[in-house]
């Protein structure tokens, strides 16, 4: 990040980063670019489909925050777990869940991950280690701590990534979880996605301590702030935190400084921030654009090669959208299934 852009960050209320960011290999940069772009295109498509009435209810888009989940996912191994709140589409795609199944759940259809019974905020994949998709702010934090507890109980070295936002960071259950996690040295990385607004309330208006990486101090949980718009910085910090957990040293807090371009949900008029603020972040810090420029600069790929990736991603997302549009609604007999096992 340049000195000039640091100043911009400071002006916007975010904090600067002094840390050097380790470079990605060609393969890493290209893979991260494609994965982040997949989330971006998926979310844009979901936004359109919401506008067309194909997706109902609440729909919280992840656009702008893609580097966080993609960078963190690069630190995991099989058996690790991921859990998050309701802004969850990006996390599911990062975990390797099929865009068709995710989109079909958004449209409430048979082949959605939850057979159409969960919707945008409630999807799961046992196979991919994704434990939801939870609609209640703060609730995934003790649940994720419990997933980590299961790793300790079974004596494996798996780690649970427990994501939550700057808004959830003020929930009481978060601190109950921090206490137990450190007390029992549970392998959980608390990934706080600080996108600066809890719905419409700016962090400084809701939080007495706005440096959320310090929120574990009184429990002796180490924490650090990370440039959540740079996938390389995310991965580097994630590697350190995950290694800490795998070594049995207990939980770790990563505060990802990130930004969402869209509203809190689809019906957010976004009157609590200026259009200029959003434009500025998009223009100077976009995680995908940063990766693209890096790839070109380092000659990891040509413009044409990137265009091919773009076309491939668009095709994948169009396929998902087509599938989700034409898949049947769940059979009425599904109303009473899955209440009990």
């Amino acid at each position: 990040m340049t000195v000039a852009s640091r100043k911009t960050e400071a002006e916007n209320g975010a904090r600067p980063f002094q840390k050097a960011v380790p470079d990605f290999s060609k393969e890493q940069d290209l893979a991260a670019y494609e994965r982040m772009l997949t989330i971006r295109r998926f979310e844009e498509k979901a936004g359109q489909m919401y506008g067309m009435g194909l997706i109902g209810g609440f729909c919280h888009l992840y656009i702008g925050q893609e580097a966080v989940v993609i960078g963190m996912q690069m630190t995991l191994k099989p058996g690790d777990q991921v859990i998050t709140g309701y802004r969850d589409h990006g996390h599911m795609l990062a975990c390797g869940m099929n865009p068709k199944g995710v989109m079909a759940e958004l449209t409430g259809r048979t082949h959605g991950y939850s057979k159409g019974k969960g919707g945008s905020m409630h999807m799961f994949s046992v196979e991919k280690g994704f434990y939801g998709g939870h609609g209640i702010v703060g609730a995934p934090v003790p649940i994720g701590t419990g997933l980590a507890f299961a790793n300790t109980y079974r004596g494996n070295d798996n780690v649970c990534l427990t994501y939550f936002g700057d808004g959830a960071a003020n929930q009481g259950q978060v601190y109950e979880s921090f206490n137990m996690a450190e007390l029992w040295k549970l392998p959980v990385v608390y990934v706080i996605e600080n996108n600066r607004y809890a719905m419409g309330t700016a962090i400084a208006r809701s939080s007495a301590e706005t440096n959320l990486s310090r929120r574990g101090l009184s429990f002796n949980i180490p924490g650090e702030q990370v440039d959540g718009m740079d996938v390389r910085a995310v991965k580097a910090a994630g590697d350190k935190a995950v290694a800490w957990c795998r070594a049995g040293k207990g939980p770790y807090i990563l505060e990802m400084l990130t930004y969402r371009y869209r509203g809190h949900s689809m019906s957010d008029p976004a009157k609590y921030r200026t259009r200029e603020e959003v434009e500025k972040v998009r223009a100077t810090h976009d995680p995908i654009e940063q990766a693209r420029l890096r790839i070109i600069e380092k000659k990891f790929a040509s413009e044409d090669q990137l265009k091919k990736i773009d076309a491939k991603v668009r095709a994948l997302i169009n396929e998902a959208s087509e599938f989700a549009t034409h898949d049947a609604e769940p059979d009425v007999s599904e109303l009473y299934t899955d209440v009990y096992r």
Partner: protein
Amino acid sequence: MPTEVLMPALSPTMEKGNLAKWLKREGDAVKSGDVIAEIETDKATMEVEAADEGTLGKILVPEGTHDVAVNTPIAVILGEGEDKSAIKDVKPSQQQKAAESAAPAKAEKAEAKAQETPAPKQEQKPPQAPEAKAASDPDIPEGTEMVTMTMREALRDAMAEEMRRDKDVFVIGEEVAEYQGAYKVTQGLLQEFGAKRVIDTPITEHGFAGLGVGAALAGLKPIVEFMTFNFAMQAMDHLINSAAKTLYMSGGQMGCSIVFRGPNGAAARVAAQHSQDYSAWYSHIPGLKVIAPFTAADAKGLLKAAIRDPNPVMFLENEILYGHSSPVPKLDDFVLPIGKAKIARSGNDVTIVSWSMGMSYALQAAEELAKDGIDAEVIDLRTLRPMDTGTIVASVQKTGRAVTVEEGWQQSGVGAEIAARIMERAFDYLDAPVARVSGRDVPMPYAANLEKLALPSVAEIVEAARAVCYR
């Protein structure tokens, strides 16, 4: 090919909106994410972003237009190398076609409005609700030794047996380990199973209930003890939103096999915040099973069943009953079916339905009534959800009269539910309205005399039974 921009739905309830302002003009270049227009919805003014790259070819709906239906084309975007002449060839965008063929609710509404002749919507009928079926109690082999023990011991034995059987079962809660249980229910478990499986928690019900749910989602089988269910209100969100609903929300993919247990209902002289019956609260929730035993044998057999059950189970114990002794069959593996009521006393004149501590009053009342020649049948529900309606109905068909007994409050209570089911399923058999005996409609008072008045009594049950028998 040019693409149409459609009037978007910008909230879960929006059907139409006003096109307040165009921020781009015809001929302007647009790229994905650019704000091109402002729309006034029923809630707020919202921005419309372009989804495709190109040039704004034509504005179809001028700014200032009111009540534009969702999905109406409002502009055309030209792709690379296209000029305005392409607009006449514009075809409904791929997405619009998709929207039409998929016939989602909103698109349908918009179309119906446009045509002013709403097509009759085909209403789907809900399927028949499944009837809960429970097996009968297993036969106790003749000659089985009956061991008299307290409910406290029976519960402890149930947990110990299941922990020996399945290494994924563990106990977690406040004071369950070193203290040996606030009510001594977990006595000896730490010594046998060690600190890894018998875990003292900080006093954080919300946190450890959620942690238990997480462990259960990961496939373990936690027994979460609440020191009393009064404190479980702090954890309510995890009991209901996280434990009870996850199987459904995941389309059957991810279950939550967990037992939440502890004393429920009034103890003695601990006043309002520590004396509440949550039977009705939990039995309201689909996805939960709710058990509230009265005898030591039922406590043991049902707790073992609850631990093995793949669903979240609320196991409501009673502090006063912990010290009560009753015979328990000495069998290697005594497991009872969840969802099966028990006829605790047979009779022909009136049906008394209760569970847990209420059974204590009900059985005493039956003895009193017998002295007056009224032969009461007493049903111990044992499980509140799924409720064994069949056993209640069969009894009422025989007696024609029913009295419910509970410590909880009447409004929206379990007694109200039983009365409703009797009315729905056995109305023609009733010779009198169903009577309810319950806790008084007040927070629990502390004073000994008032506390006694606030709880159901044997005398009240006797009186209610006489009344429905017109005697």
